[in-house]
Structure formats: structure tokens, C-alpha cells
């Protein structure tokens, strides 16, 4: 992953990509702004009173600065982060800055790390936009200054800018951005701009309140679920009970008899019931009588899948990394430590279940969506509807969470909505609503994985060999991303975190089996491969440390001599957590422990120290998590803290409760009673420490997730002497 990023970053710098100034046509971006039903986005933007120095921002006569975000805001703070970069170089007044989602347009809005594709993922939003958005702000600033200089007949160098006002000190003249906007629009776009020295930053690295907080506290934020278009119908769909099932026949009479049901249509994904409101559509859907053809459906259960994977793990897989001579190290070993791990399927379970609004017209298709993979969905829709991609307009709304789910490599729910609109010949705009049960059973889970690990210690007790075998489905094989991230049959995101193990171990083998006969759709889930590889590598290393009778922090530091950024966060977290000092004892019968883990993902480094209490019955309570992070320059430190707090909670949900299980091919969970994210009473105190850095920013949405589960597991082991190797925790195994 980091190789790809580095390559792209080089190309970006060499190619001078970034500002798409060639498209700076006033009115062009505006025409594509989301202006219908959902929201206030397009309102009040008069075509003759704005200038668009490039595709990323506009300044209006009312002094408002509107930043167009090429990335989805799904909670991770991207709208605020991107706007901070623009506003910093623009010297804008932060209070006047607002953000809207950019339309789907890969020419202007591509993710610079992804080549010609627009989308949000891999914690790349800030990293790929770091120069681009600052240059956009700097170019606009230069044009505003040039306009003022011309107006006042003074040299541009005599002008200063702060808080959205251009000033000429000598003549005490000043003008606001809004007053200058029209004249600035006529200025040539500067060929090159100088960016600030970081010492001059007044927004980056400081507290810049989130731009989306006000509308997310008064109910006015617009999500896809909230879209109401004139004449719109809501569709609720009956899906097959097993993956690969099809409709054999159905009887719609009872559904059609529900007052308010307008249409019942068969689509490849099942049977859709359309009504003017959601409840009626659901009532109609529940009244359908459907006979499913399950002849080709997937019928294995999770336990059978695990059994197959255990068999596969007995044989070598494709080698993802080979250092030294591992077999020789194990032959010469004085002690071999072994463990195996089971990780279940996991659902993303965003609070807003998947949904999508599609409106067909004679000239194209309009989509409203919490859009995470703009280009992929745009092309998929164009293919289905026999349109050109540019005839597919996508309005990007806030996403009520995603954690990867809205970046579906197969455009599943988006295409489902389009199929329904097509099935009714575009007679009405269609809002596809998945109820929670539909969302949880729709697949595209974090893949189920089995890992086997072995470590070799020599006569002197040195760690000389490491074997790590992984068995699990590939996310990327068969997807549009295959070419980028599958090498020699190895899906890099299956093994990331394992094949990138930073520890200095001379003889090391990582290999992987990728079963192709498991027909459960899988997808990236916040932190992707690291969601399981951090657990196995970091808990296994603690087991090795125990066998070596070494302190877990000391052993890691010893093995991380060549990896200063890992070591840096590890030392900081250990120091802030009081590593080595005794913990306060719990109440009688309680056992307490402290555990550590460190992991790099998406070029950011996070160490966490967890403090836990294990009750007599084995119940695990996480009391405190101390996090240290190195994500390069922290653009918005408060958001970095928020993402680590949230990452801790997200990971803890999976560790304590999270499992999607299959029985005879049927998903056993359907709602939050059986697939339970943690609640507030289970949330630990979280302390976050940010390592100061001058490196370019790297991701923050995902890297807080991976270290949490191993840190907690290591803490539990410290308290109880037991390493749990199957997730989620079966805490009765910890009963005293």
C-alpha cells in the first residue's frame, strides 16, 4: 500500500497535477452542484457573482467561501480537513467557510493516489489532497490580491490578507473577499503559487471547529435517507435468504392489496415493493409470497468454513514475504511457540443503512448517495443504463457512517436502486431503503480469516524465525482494484500488516491461501487487512515475549531499531500510560492487567496501551486506553483525537461482541440485538497523544482501529494468563 502511495506521490509532484485550472469556467461547477430537494447546497449561488479560481472553491459576494470536497464526509472529518487546507492558504475567515460534496467527475476530482478515479478510502483523503487543496487556496488568494492591487493601483506586494480581508496598510484601504470576488474572477490564474512555511500556519495544527457540527446537532444535516423528491417512490426489497439465491416465482397479490403500494417489480436482486412512504413499502414487502431458487446458493456455515480453512492451513500457501531461511531457523530452534487464530465475518453496520436515490430522465440519470466510490459507481450505472458516464450525475450527501461499506467494489446497492428505477421505466424517482435487516444480511463483510503462527527461539533465547500463514477470501480479486493491489495472485490487503511486519526477525515467511469457492461477498472494513493481522501479530509477539521472559515494550523496542516511527509512538504511549508501574488493584475477585500493541496502517503509526479489569465470571471491562499517534502533520489535532476515540470504540465492538455467523448459508444476525456495537457504558476513557511531526499528513480514519484489540487481549493475558485466539472474546473462558 505504501509503495503505491509513494509512487503516486512522486508522480503527483512531477506531473504537477493538482490544480485543475483548465476547467476554471465560472458556472460549470455550479451547474453540477446538488441543488434539488436535499439541502441548501445550491441555494443562493448567483452565476454572475462568483468566481471559481479552480474546481475546489468558490467565493460569493456574501463573503462565503464554499469548498467543494472531492471526498465523502462519513464522519471522519474530511470536509473540515480539506476546508482547513484551502482556508489556511487563502487566509479566509474560518467562520465563513462551508463545505459541500463535489459531483462525480474523475477529471477534476480524482483521488491523486488512485490515478483516474474519484473516491474515498484507505485513509487517503488528507494525504492525497495535502498540496492540491493548499494550492487551490493559494491561487485564489493570489487572484484576490491581484484584483485589489489593480483596483487601488498599488503593487500586490504592498497588500496583506487576513481573515477574509485584503488590506493596503499605507492607504488604509481594505476590501472583503466578497467585495473582490467578481474582479478576482477576471484575473489570470497564477501558474505557480508559493505555499506557506508551516511556521505561519494559523489553522493547520490548531483548533478549527468542524464545519458540519451545527447541522449535525439540529437535525438539518441531509443524508440520503432524508431525500424527498417530487413524485418519489420508496422501494423496499425482498432479498434471497442465502447468497446466490434467485427468485423462482412470486405472488404479489397480498403486497399489492396493501393500501398505498404502487408497484411491485422483480429485479435481479429480488422483488421490490414501491410505495409513497417507507412503512407502506415495508408492509407490502413483508406481504410478498416468494419461492426462492436456491439451487446455486451458498449453503456452508461459518464453522464449516473455518474447518476448511484449518485444513488449507496445513499446506503452504502463496508466499507474500520471505526473509532469510525460515525452515533452517525452525530446524535449529530450541523452542517453538505456536498459536492459531479465528476471525469472523464482520458487518459494517453503519447507523444509516444503505440507501440510494435514483432519478432517470430522457437525458441521463441523477443519483443521490453518500457516495464513496464516485467513479466506480458512475461507470457501473452508466453500464447498466447504457449511458455515458458523464450522463450520470451524482450528488454526494453526508453518509451516516460507512466504514468502507459505501465504497462497494460491485456498486451493489447503487445498482439495485437503478434496477428498480429501470424496472418502472423511470416513471418516478426511486429511493431504495434497506431496512436494518436488509443491510446486515447483504454481505460485503470483512472476510472471515484463519491464521496460524509459529516463532522459533534459539539456544540463547533469541527470536530467529517467524511463520505466519493466513487463510481467507480476497477482497480485491475480481474487482476493479485487482490490477493495482493483487501481485502474483496475492491480494495485498489480505496480508497487509502481516507481510509488512516491522520487527527485525532474520528468518520470516508469510504465506496466504485465498479460497475462491466461498461465495460470501466481502469488502474492506475500517482498517481492512490490519483489522485481523494486527491482532495475530501483536498478541503472538506478546506470547513470544512471555516465552522469552521479556517485557513486551522492551522486546518491541529491541526489534524496532530500524523503525523509528513505530518506536516513537510506542515509547510515547508507554510513557504516558505509566508502563511498568503497578496498576491499582481492582475490587476483590477482579483481575487487572495492562497490555500494549503498536501497528502501522495507511502510513500512520499508532500505539495503544489498554488497562482492563476482568471480573470473576470472565467479563472484560476496558477502563482506559492510552493512544500515541504519528500521522505526520496533524491538520486538525482535535479530529485526530476524535478518530482515535472512535477507532477504539469501533474496534472494541468487534473484540467484545462482533460476529456475523452463517448457518447453512443463512446469516444468523439481523439487527443490533445479535450484532451489537458497544454502548456508552462499555466505552473506556481514551487519552490521545499526538507525536509532533513535520512529515506530510497520512491517514487518520482507520489507523486507530488495529492496535486496540491486541492491546486489550494482551492486557487480558496479563490479568489472567490466557490468550484468547478466537474473536469475538468468549469471556466465559476467562472465568476465575
Amino acid at each position, binding site marked *: 500500500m505504501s509503495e503505491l502511495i509513494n509512487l503516486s506521490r512522486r508522480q503527483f509532484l512531477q506531473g504537477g497535477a493538482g490544480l485543475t485550472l483548465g476547467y476554471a469556467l465560472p458556472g460549470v461547477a455550479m451547474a453540477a452542484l446538488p441543488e434539488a430537494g436535499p439541502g441548501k447546497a445550491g441555494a443562493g449561488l448567483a452565476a454572475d457573482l462568483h468566481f471559481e479560481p479552480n474546481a475546489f472553491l468558490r467565493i460569493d459576494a456574501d463573503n462565503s467561501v464554499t469548498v467543494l470536497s472531492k471526498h465523502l464526509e462519513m*464522519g471522519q472529518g474530511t470536509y473540515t480537513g480539506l476546508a482547513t487546507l484551502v482556508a489556511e492558504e487563502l487566509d479566509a475567515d474560518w467562520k465563513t467557510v462551508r463545505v459541500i460534496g463535489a459531483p462525480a467527475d474523475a477529471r477534476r476530482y480524482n483521488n491523486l493516489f488512485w490515478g483516474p478515479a474519484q473516491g474515498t478510502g484507505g485513509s487517503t483523503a488528507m494525504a492525497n489532497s495535502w498540496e492540491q487543496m493548499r494550492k487551490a487556496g493559494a491561487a485564489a488568494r493570489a487572484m484576490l490580491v491581484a484584483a485589489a492591487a489593480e483596483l487601488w493601483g498599488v503593487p500586490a506586494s504592498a497588500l496583506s490578507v487576513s481573515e477574509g480581508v485584503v488590506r493596503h496598510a499605507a492607504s488604509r484601504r481594505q476590501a472583503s473577499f466578497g467585495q473582490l470576488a467578481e474582479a478576482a474572477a477576471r484575473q489570470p490564474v497564477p501558474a505557480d503559487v508559493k505555499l506557506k512555511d508551516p511556521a505561519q500556519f494559523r489553522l493547520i495544527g490548531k483548533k478549527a471547529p468542524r464545519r458540519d457540527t451545527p447541522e449535525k446537532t*439540529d*437535525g*438539518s444535516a441531509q443524508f440520503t435517507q432524508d431525500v424527498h423528491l417530487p413524485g418519489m417512490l420508496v422501494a423496499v426489497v425482498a432479498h434471497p435468504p442465502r447468497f446466490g439465491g434467485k427468485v423462482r416465482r412470486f405472488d404479489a397479490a397480498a403486497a399489492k392489496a396493501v393500501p398505498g403500494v404502487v408497484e411491485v417489480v422483480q429485479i435481479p436482486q429480488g422483488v421490490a415493493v414501491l410505495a409513497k412512504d*417507507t412503512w407502506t413499502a415495508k408492509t407490502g414487502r413483508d406481504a410478498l409470497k416468494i419461492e426462492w431458487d436456491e439451487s446455486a446458493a451458498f449453503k456452508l456455515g461459518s464453522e464449516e468454513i473455518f474447518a476448511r480453512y484449518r485444513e488449507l492451513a496445513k499446506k503452504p500457501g502463496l508466499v507474500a514475504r520471505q526473509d532469510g531461511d525460515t525452515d533452517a531457523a525452525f530446524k535449529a530452534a530450541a523452542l517453538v511457540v505456536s498459536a492459531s487464530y479465528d476471525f469472523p465475518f464482520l458487518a459494517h453496520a*453503519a447507523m444509516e443503512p444503505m440507501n440510494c436515490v435514483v432519478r432517470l430522465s430522457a437525458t441521463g440519470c441523477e443519483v443521490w448517495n453518500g457516495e464513496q466510490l464516485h467513479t466506480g459507481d458512475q461507470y457501473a450505472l452508466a453500464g447498466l443504463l447504457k449511458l455515458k458516464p458523464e450522463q450520470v450525475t451524482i450528488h454526494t450527501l453526508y453518509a*451516516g457512517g460507512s466504514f468502507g461499506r459505501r465504497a462497494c467494489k460491485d456498486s451493489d446497492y447503487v445498482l439495485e436502486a437503478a434496477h428498480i428505477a429501470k424496472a418502472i421505466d423511470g416513471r418516478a424517482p426511486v429511493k431504495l431503503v434497506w431496512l436494518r435487516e436488509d443491510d446486515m444480511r447483504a454481505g460485503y463483510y470483512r472476510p472471515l480469516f484463519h491464521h496460524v503462527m509459529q516463532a522459533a527461539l534459539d539456544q540463547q533465547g533469541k527470536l530467529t524465525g517467524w511463520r505466519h500463514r493466513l487463510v481467507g477470501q480476497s477482497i480485491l480479486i475480481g474487482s476493479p482494484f485487482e490490477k493495482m493491489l493483487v501481485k502474483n495472485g496475492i491480494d495485498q490487503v489480505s496480508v497487509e500488516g502481516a507481510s509488512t511486519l516491522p520487527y527485525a526477525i532474520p528468518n520470516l515467511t508469510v504465506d496466504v491461501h485465498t479460497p475462491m469457492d466461498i461465495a460470501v461477498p466481502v469488502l474492506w472494513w475500517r482498517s481492512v487487512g490490519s483489522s485481523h493481522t494486527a491482532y495475530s501479530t501483536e498478541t503472538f509477539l506478546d506470547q513470544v515475549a512471555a516465552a522469552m521472559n521479556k517485557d513486551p515494550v522492551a522486546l518491541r523496542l529491541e526489534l524496532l531499531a530500524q523503525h523509528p516511527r513505530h518506536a516513537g509512538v510506542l515509547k510515547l504511549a508507554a510513557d504516558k500510560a505509566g508502563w511498568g508501574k503497578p496498576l491499582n488493584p481492582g475490587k476483590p475477585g477482579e483481575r487487572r492487567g495492562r497490555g500494549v500493541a503498536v501497528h502501522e496502517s495507511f502510513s500512520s503509526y499508532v500505539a495503544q496501551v489498554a488497562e482492563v479489569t476482568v471480573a470473576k465470571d470472565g467479563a472484560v471491562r476496558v477502563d482506559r486506553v492510552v493512544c500515541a499517534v504519528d500521522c505526520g502533520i496533524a491538520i486538525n489535532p482535535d479530529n485526530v483525537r476524535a478518530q482515535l*476515540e472512535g477507532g477504539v470504540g469501533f474496534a472494541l465492538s468487534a473484540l467484545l461482541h462482533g460476529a456475523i455467523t452463517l448457518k447453512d448459508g443463512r446469516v444468523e444476525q439481523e439487527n443490533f440485538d445479535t450484532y451489537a456495537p*458497544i454502548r456508552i457504558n462499555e466505552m473506556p476513557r481514551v487519552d490521545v497523544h499526538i507525536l509532533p511531526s513535520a512529515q506530510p499528513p497520512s491517514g487518520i480514519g482507520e489507523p486507530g482501529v488495529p492496535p486496540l484489540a491486541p492491546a486489550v487481549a494482551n492486557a487480558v493475558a496479563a490479568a489472567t494468563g490466557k490468550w484468547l485466539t478466537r474473536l469475538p472474546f468468549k469471556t466465559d473462558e476467562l472465568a476465575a
Partner: protein
Amino acid sequence: MIQLKINGKAQHVEVAPDTPLLWALRDTLLLTGTKYGCGRALCGACTVHVDGQPMRSCSVPVSALAGRSVTTIEAVAAQRAGRAVQAAWRKLDVPQCGYCQSGQIMSAVALLAQNHKPSDADIDAAMSGNLCRCATYVRIRAAIHEAARNLALGNPTP
């Protein structure tokens, strides 16, 4: 035709009597601040006040609401506690994705209406019906304390 009192106004909705209040609010009255999350009173995203008490609107049929007064997120700022909670949420930048936050705020306001100085344990008890998949819980707790402090001090709320 069913008559409801929503945010102080009499409203007529033409829906089947078994329609949950949630869908009457969202799809009929276009009060979309109240969110659908689970449909089974498991997540709290749909929390509103009925006669001042927090209720999961996904699980209350409109037919049960005759003569009762419903308050949604859109009108919670009419209450002092509502303004205090919203101000604290803004000050601490509580929301991430934001989808559950209307429900969180409605539960928090109901808590503060009956407990002016909640402890962490009181907050956990009152708020554990509201899921947040982004796990903004650390800040929810802190913001409720902040709102309680400002209410106790009589600080003006915007």
C-alpha cells in the same frame, strides 16, 4: 386521518394507524431530523419526546398518540436544556457521521430535565439505549457534563 401534536402544532397525517410515529414524522411531515436506525427500539436514533419523556418513535404507532405532545430534534431548541445540550455538542464537536446524534441529543435533554447533575453512571444508564457506531461516547459524556454545568450556572445558551 390521524391528528397529532408535533412540536406544539396540530398536524393531520393520512397514514395507516399502525404506522410508527417515526415514518409519519419522516415521510409524511418531512421532519427528517429523527432518524431510522433499526426499527426495533434497539439503537435510539429515532428518539423523540412524548409528553417530555424520551421514546423510540420507530416503535410507537401513531394511533397511540392521540392527545399527546411530541417534540422532535427540530424543536428541541425551544427548551433551555435543549439549547444547552446543542451548545455543548457544538463546543466539543461531538458528532462524527452525525446520523445518531438527533437521538443522542433528545435522550440527553430528557436526562437533564430530570437530573440536573448526572454522574457518569447516570449518563451511562440514561444513554445506553442510544448506539453510536462512530463511538463518540467519550464526547457525549463530556458534553452532557458541560451542558449540566452551564444550566446550573445559569449561563446563557445561544
